[in-house]
């Protein structure tokens, strides 16, 4: 009886550390729902592996990996973040592949209080705030800036910008009605389709393609490569398609 509490405490502490079969997948915030499903499907096929998912803005994940975070797979929402990872020698460049395509959309809260029907309306007085990811660290924000720069709307929108830490935070700001409009990926808008409405699909100067790679410092590169192969397999592609991602 007396031993039980210390033993329970030990188990509690010990259970927090990663086991040998943990495969840590650092994935862009926009992949949250899709990669949860992919991870579960992968675990069903590889019961010896436990997939640990880590979601954040791509540049945050990159910073973590470059600082020595024990990740095995890195999936980012744009090539810029993956290029930075390659430049920092944080990934194995031979394993880098594009695995999904997405689109940038302009979303408004349900009811569309500011009557926004396209990016041109954002400069008007009815729109006080626009949410998008911080272009310095969030791919969706970089796509937003590039798209609006092409339409000569960037300065007008940036003056109303609410910078989100990742694309899902921008989605949340719009869903809560705290901003009149926001920029997210089409797949994010689908997740919150009961609370946000897509006002327009926004063309981007470069296609929105998601790269994936094995982390250079991974202690289990074979498992990591197997996960990457699963993402690219017909089953992985089917799961991603179910969440609105297109094949590259």
């Amino acid at each position, binding site marked *: 009886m007396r031993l039980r509490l210390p033993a329970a405490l030990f188990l509690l502490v010990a259970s927090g550390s990663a086991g040998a079969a943990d495969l840590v997948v650092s994935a862009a915030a926009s992949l949250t729902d899709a990669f949860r499903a992919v991870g579960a499907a992968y675990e069903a096929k590889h019961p010896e592996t436990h997939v640990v998912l880590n979601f954040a803005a791509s*540049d945050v994940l990159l910073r973590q990996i470059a600082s020595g975070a024990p990740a095995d797979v890195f999936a980012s929402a744009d090539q810029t973040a993956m290029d930075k990872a390659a430049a920092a020698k944080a990934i194995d460049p031979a394993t880098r592949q594009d695995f999904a395509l997405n689109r940038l959309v302009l979303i408004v809260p349900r009811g569309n209080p500011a009557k926004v029907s396209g990016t041109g309306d954002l400069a008007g007085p009815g729109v006080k705030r626009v949410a998008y990811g911080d272009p310095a*660290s969030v791919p969706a924000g970089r796509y937003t800036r590039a798209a609006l720069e092409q339409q000569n709307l960037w300065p007008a929108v940036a003056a109303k910008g609410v910078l989100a*830490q990742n694309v899902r935070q921008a989605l949340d700001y719009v869903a*809560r009605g*705290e901003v009149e409009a926001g920029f997210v990926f089409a797949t994010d808008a689908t997740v919150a389709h009961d609370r946000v409405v897509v006002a327009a699909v926004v063309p981007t100067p470069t296609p929105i393609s998601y790269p994936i790679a094995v982390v250079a410092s991974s202690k289990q590169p074979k498992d990591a490569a197997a996960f990457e192969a699963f993402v690219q397999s017909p089953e992985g592609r089917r799961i991603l398609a179910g969440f609105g991602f297109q094949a590259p």
Partner: protein
Amino acid sequence: MDGIWVPLALTLKVALWATAINLVLGVAVAFGLARWRSPAREVVDSVLTLPLVLPPTVLGYYLLVLLGRRGVFGAWLDRLGIELVFTWQGAVIASTLVAFPLVQKAARAAFEAVDPQLEDAARVLGLREMAVFFRVSLPLAARGITAGALLAFARALGEFGATLMIAGNLPGRTQTLSVAIYAAVQAGDDRTAGLMVAVVSATCVVALLLAGWLAPGRARRVRS
């Protein structure tokens, strides 16, 4: 370098406002609690201390749910033309809330340390209750209250979690130093982040030194 002045000025504005509000609110509540004889007193005290132990994200969530446009009081505030989410006033509310217990606790201890006989003497000499408070109790407790206010100022300077949730990250408008540091680190801009970290650290050290110097314990030691 110029990137640091705007968030610094905003941070000081927010922290000063939060400290000023807490001086009035915290002192009033502390005086009430110090003089109130009721078993409910400690319950009220505990609830008011919650911001000290609750995660700031929890406080931020409460604020967002209460004060957001679609929040409990949101529509009502909207009608009054008051906007708090994504404004610097929202940041003041967040900082005020997290720093409140620091002033309240220090002020209550300071009021309880005031010798009631001095207050009674003032009453006997014909001072009204308001005058007793402002001319006897408050001056005697001032040192402890100031120490609490400095701690609250330091806490407000560094407030991050609740601020980010309610005031967001709007450069030039709600981007305080803590939020700017977070954004700079995420973007890999270590130079800017390092500079801002140094400024916040130095300011907090000065505030803590002042608070320690003013703390009642030290004062007694100096006098004896």
